[in-house]
C-alpha cells in the first residue's frame, strides 16, 4: 500500500507547487498588442483612453464614425477624474503596457508630455485638414523640434455664472449685460460687487462665490506666463500676476465672500443643488457640470455674464501612441473627431467650446443659446471670450500640480483662517516638494 500512498501524495504536492508557479507566471501574461487595438479579419479595432466629460463618447460621435466606416470598432474607456487618469497614463507609458491607441491629454499635462514622452506619441505635423485650429492651441502640444503630439478638442474661455434670483435679493441688476458692466475690465470690481452683495443680501446664508481658487485660476490664466517662464524656470514666486491673483483671492476669502467649498469635489455639488453661493467663475466646460449638479429645480435661475478679463482655463488634446498597430487609422479618427463639424456638434450637445477657429466662427456655435442658463447666448459670450485669450501661453511641466497646490493654499486661508503670508509660505514649500 505504501507505494500507492506516497506516489499519490507526491502527485498532489507537485500539482500544488506547479499550480503556484503558473499562478505567478500567469500574472505577467503578455498581450500581442501594446494597446489592445489591432487588425483582424479585415476589422480594425481602435482603443481610446479618455477622462472627464470630453463629449466624444457622450454625444454619440463614436457610433457615427463606426457607421460611416464599416469594419471599424472603437472601444473607449473613460476615467472620471483627470488626476487619476493621468497617474495611470504615466505608469503605463513608463511600463509600455496597458496603453490605448488614442489617449486624451489635459492642458496642464501637455508640457510634461512634450518634454518627457515625445518619442512615445505619433506626430501630427503636416497631417492634411488639420490647419483649422486656434494658433496657440497647436503650439501647446508641439515639441521644441516641431513635432505635434496631438490635436485639440476644446478650450476653456471664461465667463461668470450667477444666480439671478440672489442678485435681485441683494438689490443688484439681473440683466447679463448690466451685470457684466458691473465688473468690466477688472477682477477687483468682481470682488467689490461681492462686498456689496454680502452687505445688502436679504435672506438665508448665501455666499457670493463658491471658492477663492476659482477666482485665482481665472486671474492667473489671463496672463501669458503663469508658473514658468519660457526657459522652463519656475517663476511662480516672483511673477506679479500670480501674487496679484493670490492677494485678491485671499481678500475674498478673508472677507467671507466664499462658500469655502472645494471645486469639483462632492461638497461642491450639494452647494450647487441647494444654492449656497451666488456666483461661480465658469469656463465653458463647467456649464454642463453646473446644469447637471444644480438640477432641473434650478433651471432658469442661473445666467451667464461676460468675465472681467479673458483667460483660458483647461481644455484638452487627443494623442496617438507611436507603437500602436493601428496608428494611421487612429490618427484618422482623431483628425475626424477634432474636425470643425464634430467640435461644433459637441458644443451644441454639451457646451464644450471648440479649439477649432473654423468651428468657433460657424453659425452653429455663434448662435447657440443655453435653455438652462436663462437662454444666455453662450456661443456669442464664449466665442468672444476665446478671442481675448492671450495668443501666447507659456506652459510648464508641473502646471497641473502647482495649480492644485495653490487651490489648497487658498483653502488654508478660507477654512483654517491661516494668515495669507503663512499660507503662501506653506504653498511654496509644497511646490518645491512637488517639483522635486
Amino acid at each position, binding site marked *: 500500500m505504501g507505494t500507492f500512498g506516497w506516489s499519490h501524495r507526491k502527485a498532489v504536492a507537485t500539482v500544488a*507547487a506547479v499550480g*503556484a508557479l503558473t499562478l505567478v507566471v500567469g500574472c505577467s501574461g503578455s498581450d500581442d498588442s501594446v494597446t489592445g487595438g489591432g487588425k483582424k479579419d479585415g476589422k480594425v479595432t481602435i482603443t481610446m483612453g479618455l477622462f472627464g466629460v470630453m463629449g466624444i463618447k457622450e454625444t454619440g460621435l463614436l457610433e457615427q464614425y463606426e457607421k460611416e466606416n464599416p469594419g471599424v470598432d472603437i472601444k473607449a474607456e473613460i476615467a472620471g477624474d483627470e488626476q487619476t487618469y493621468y497617474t495611470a497614463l504615466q505608469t503605463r507609458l513608463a511600463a509600455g503596457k496597458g496603453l490605448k491607441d488614442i489617449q486624451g491629454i489635459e492642458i496642464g499635462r501637455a508640457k510634461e508630455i512634450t518634454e518627457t514622452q515625445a518619442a512615445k506619441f505619433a506626430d501630427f505635423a503636416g497631417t492634411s485638414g488639420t490647419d483649422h485650429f486656434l494658433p496657440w492651441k497647436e503650439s501647446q502640444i508641439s515639441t521644441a523640434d516641431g513635432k505635434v503630439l496631438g490635436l485639440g478638442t476644446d478650450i476653456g474661455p471664461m465667463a461668470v455664472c450667477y444666480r439671478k434670483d440672489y442678485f435681485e435679493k441683494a438689490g443688484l441688476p439681473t440683466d447679463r449685460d448690466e451685470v457684466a458692466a458691473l465688473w468690466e475690465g477688472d477682477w477687483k470690481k468682481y470682488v467689490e460687487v461681492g462686498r456689496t452683495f454680502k452687505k445688502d443680501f436679504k435672506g438665508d446664508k448665501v455666499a457670493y462665490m463658491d471658492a477663492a481658487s476659482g477666482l485665482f485660476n481665472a486671474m492667473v490664466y489671463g496672463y501669458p506666463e503663469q508658473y514658468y517662464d519660457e526657459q522652463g524656470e519656475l517663476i511662480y514666486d516672483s511673477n506679479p500676476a500670480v501674487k496679484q491673483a493670490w492677494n485678491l483671492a485671499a481678500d475674498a476669502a478673508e472677507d467671507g465672500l466664499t462658500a469655502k467649498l472645494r471645486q469639483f*469635489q462632492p*461638497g461642491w455639488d450639494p452647494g450647487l443643488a441647494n444654492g*449656497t453661493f451666488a456666483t461661480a467663475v465658469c469656463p465653458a466646460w463647467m456649464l454642463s457640470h453646473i446644469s447637471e449638479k444644480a438640477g432641473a429645480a434650478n433651471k432658469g435661475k442661473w445666467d451667464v455674464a461676460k468675465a472681467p478679463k479673458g483667460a483660458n482655463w483647461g481644455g484638452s488634446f487627443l494623442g496617438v501612441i507611436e507603437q500602436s498597430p493601428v496608428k494611421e487609422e487612429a490618427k484618422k479618427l482623431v483628425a475626424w473627431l477634432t474636425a470643425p463639424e464634430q467640435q461644433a456638434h459637441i458644443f451644441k450637445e454639451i457646451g464644450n467650446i471648440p479649439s477649432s477657429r473654423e468651428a468657433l466662427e460657424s453659425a452653429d456655435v455663434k448662435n447657440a443659446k443655453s435653455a438652462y442658463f436663462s437662454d444666455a447666448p453662450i456661443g456669442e459670450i464664449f466665442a468672444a471670450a476665446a478671442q481675448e485669450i492671450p495668443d501666447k501661453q507659456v506652459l510648464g511641466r508641473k502646471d497641473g500640480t502647482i495649480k*492644485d497646490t495653490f487651490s489648497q493654499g487658498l*483653502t*488654508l486661508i478660507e477654512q483654517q483662517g491661516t494668515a495669507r503670508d503663512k499660507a503662501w509660505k506653506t504653498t511654496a514649500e509644497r511646490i518645491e516638494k512637488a517639483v522635486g
Partner: protein
Amino acid sequence: MATSTTTAPAGKGPSGHSPDKRPARRRGALLHRLDLRGAPYAFVAPFFVVFAAFSFYPLLYTSWISLHDVELATLDVMQWVAFDNYVELWGDSRFWNALQNTITIGVISTVPQLLMALGLAHLLNYRMRFSLFFRVASLVPYATSVAAAALVFTMIFERDFGMINWALGTVGIDPLDWEGGKWPAQIAISTIVIWRWTGYNALLYLAAMQAIPAERYEAASLDGASRWKQFTHVTVPGIRSTIVFTIVLSTIGATQLFGEPLIFGQGPNGVTGGADNQYQTLGLLLYEEGWKNYQMGRSATVAWVMFLLLVLVLLVQRLVKRLRSGTS
C-alpha cells in the same frame, strides 16, 4: 524555494558502490524518506512562492528604489543618491506631522474599538434570544467595503448638509467643520475605523470566551464573585492571548491606515490629508509622494520607514510582554 528544499535530501543520498540487486529498493527507500521530509515543504511552498513574488521581491526592490531619485514617468532613469531620501525625510516636517497623525488616529480608533469589542463580546456571550442574528449583524460592517463605508460617513460628517451637523443644530450647537478641523477630522476618521472593526474583534473575543471552561465561572460564583469580578478575573485572563493578537493586528492596521482618510478627504484634497495636512497619515504621505508628486524614490523611502516603524513597534510590544511575564 520548493526545489531547493526538496532536492537537498537527495544530495545526501548514498551513491557509488552499490550491489546490483539493491538499487531499486534503495531508491524506493530514498524516495520514501524524501517524501516524508519533503512533502510538508511542498505543501507550504505555494504560499512562499507567492510571498516571494508579491511581497519579498517588492520589499527588496522598494529598498533599492528608495536609494535613488526616480520619477514615475521615467522609471528607467534612476539616479543614485544613497541615503539622501532618508535624511531628507528625517528633516521633513510633513513626515513628523504624518507620523503624529498616524499615532493619534491609531490611538483614538484602536483603544475604544477594542474596549467596545470586549464589552460587545461579553454581552453576546450571554444566553439570549436571536444570538445568532446579533453575531452576524456585528460582522456586517466588516464585510462592507472601505470605500462604501467611508463614502457614507463622509456624507454624514459633511459640513453644510451632513446628518451630524443637522443633529447638532437641533440641540443648538453650531455646525462643526468636520473635514477642516484637526481633531474633528481625526475623530470622524476614527469613527469609520471603529465602526468597521469592532464587530470583527468582538467575534474573535467571543470565540475565545466560549473556550473558557464553565467550571471556572461556577467556582468563581461559589466564591461570591460578582458578574464584574467574573469578567475581570476569569474572562479577561482567559482570553489574554486573543487580546494580544487583536492588539497586534490593530497596530498593523493603524500604521497602514490609508483608505478611510483618503476617501474622507475626497479627491486631491484627500491625498494631502486636508488643506493643512491635518489628517494625513503615513500611508497618505507615501501616496502623495508617489502619485501626486510622482517621486517614486521618496515614496519608496516612506514605505520602508513605515515597515521599519512597524517592526520597531512589534519588537517593543514583545519586549513589554516578556518583561511583564517575567515579573508576574
